[in-house]
């Protein structure tokens, strides 16, 4: 699926990540922790080809990122649902259309998926906000919408950067449950988070590995050591 081998990433003369090796197998569930600024977001961006490693190899679906064409990148991203920390949307179209955007860009008629879209929006608690524009949503609502957009195509991999950072405990459990359901369907999940309670709650329900980035390197953390 996604494989990093002895990967490093430098920016502005400094090395942010080094000697990173990891293989995300189908159906695996990972948490990624580490202090702020340790490189969790950079690591996730390497995982979906938004950044190019300065050394080492990154393979997405058995293809070396450096050999991928721009269309290959687009095709790979259709198989990877991404939730960014800053949750970017198209601010001029309603949130339901934003969530359905992955369907639109792949040429699928979103009208055929109206029921799925409605159900998904209900699941993330946005059933009554479908016609709202993104700027009208709170931080937590935007995060939920971003997660809904990331999973609407039922992607092979979901990479989520602090997906529960702005939501209450009850909603974070609900979102976690959605990701667990996807994982049970064989999807690969990686969540970058500071929330140890979330990790504990997940580990009670699913076989999850916890990884930690410290001193630019990736390590197994806590109970996974």
């Amino acid at each position, binding site marked *: 699926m996604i494989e990093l081998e002895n990967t490093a990433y430098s920016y502005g003369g400094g090395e942010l990540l080094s000697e990173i090796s990891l293989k995300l197998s189908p159906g695996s569930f990972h948490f990624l922790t580490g202090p702020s600024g340790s490189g969790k977001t950079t690591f996730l961006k390497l995982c979906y080809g*938004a950044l190019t490693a300065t050394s080492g190899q990154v393979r997405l679906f058995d293809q070396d990122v450096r050999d991928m064409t721009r269309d290959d990148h687009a095709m790979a991203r259709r198989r990877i649902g991404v939730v960014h920390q800053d949750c*970017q949307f*198209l601010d001029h*179209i309603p949130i339901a259309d934003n969530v359905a955007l992955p369907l639109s860009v*792949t040429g699928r008629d979103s009208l055929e998926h109206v029921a799925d879209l409605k159900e998904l929006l209900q699941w993330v608690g946005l059933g009554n906000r479908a016609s709202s524009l993104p700027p009208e949503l709170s931080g937590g609502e935007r995060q939920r919408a971003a997660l809904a957009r990331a999973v609407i195509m039922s992607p092979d991999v979901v990479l989520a950067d602090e997906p529960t950072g702005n939501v209450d405990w009850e909603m974070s459990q609900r979102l976690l449950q959605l990701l667990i359901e996807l994982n049970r369907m064989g999807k690969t999940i990686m969540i970058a988070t500071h929330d140890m309670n979330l990790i504990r709650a997940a580990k009670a329900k699913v076989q999850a590995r916890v990884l930690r980035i410290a001193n630019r390197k990736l390590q197994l953390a806590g109970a996974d050591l």
Partner: protein
Amino acid sequence: MTDFVKAARDFISGDAHADRVVPPSGITARLTTFVSGTMAFLTVFALALSLASGRLATRWGDDLAHSSTLRISAPAGQVAEQTAVAIRVLESTPGIEAVRALSSDEQRALLEPWFGPDLPVDSLPIPQLIEILETDDGYDAAGLRLRLQAEVPGAILDDHTRWRKPLEQAAGRLRLLGWLAIGLIAVSTAAMITLAANAALAANAQVIGVLRLVGARDSYIANAFVRRFTLRALTGGAVGTILGLGAVLLLPSAQSAGGFLTGLGFQGAGWVWPLLIPPLAGGVAYFATGAAARRTLSESL
């Protein structure tokens, strides 16, 4: 051809979703429409100038190429005699279709623009002019000059070459200048639309980022911008062309005043040319925006 028509139809009808991903308003929208309209307006005039120059060059080339003038400058008592001899010589020259000595009234009319209507032609030593119409094959001007030199000493043959060529060249250059102006207008339009497209792409960096994140191909993103800019240019081009044609129609007609400038406009099949301006404006926008979008998209992962 069918594929092209289908592709053009699909492009114009568009993809409702793709159309919506780019925010609908902004200064670039108005700028593109305005620039296309203005450039189309100017193109109509450049086209009118070019076509009018072309007509003028053809007229001078064709009409005057088959006519010559013989001028007889002789003492007053010998003019009639030399005219008669000259006419006889001309009529017996192969390649000359018709010969006619201009009357006093006709000569007065020729001089009238310079000296006024009351010119006493009869009392002035004005040369007698003989109009010569040639056959399609023409005549041997050098041979005729030699014969005239021998038989009509006061005759000077003007086959119009001396002044027709520079006029023809001038008209040809004017026509070329018109086409050059059209080319420059097209390049300027492309440059302006490229600037507008670049501004729109830069202003919509977040839109592009979101689309890439959800797996949109470059072609999908580029088309969303290209289609919008093309339709704006097409609309602006159509409005500019209509206004330009209206302005050309308001120019005084050639019949009422005469002269080159009053003949500026379109005639016959020439009216088809301005109809090509809006699609050309759209085509320029299509390629300019496509190139700008591809360049911008290739710079980001």
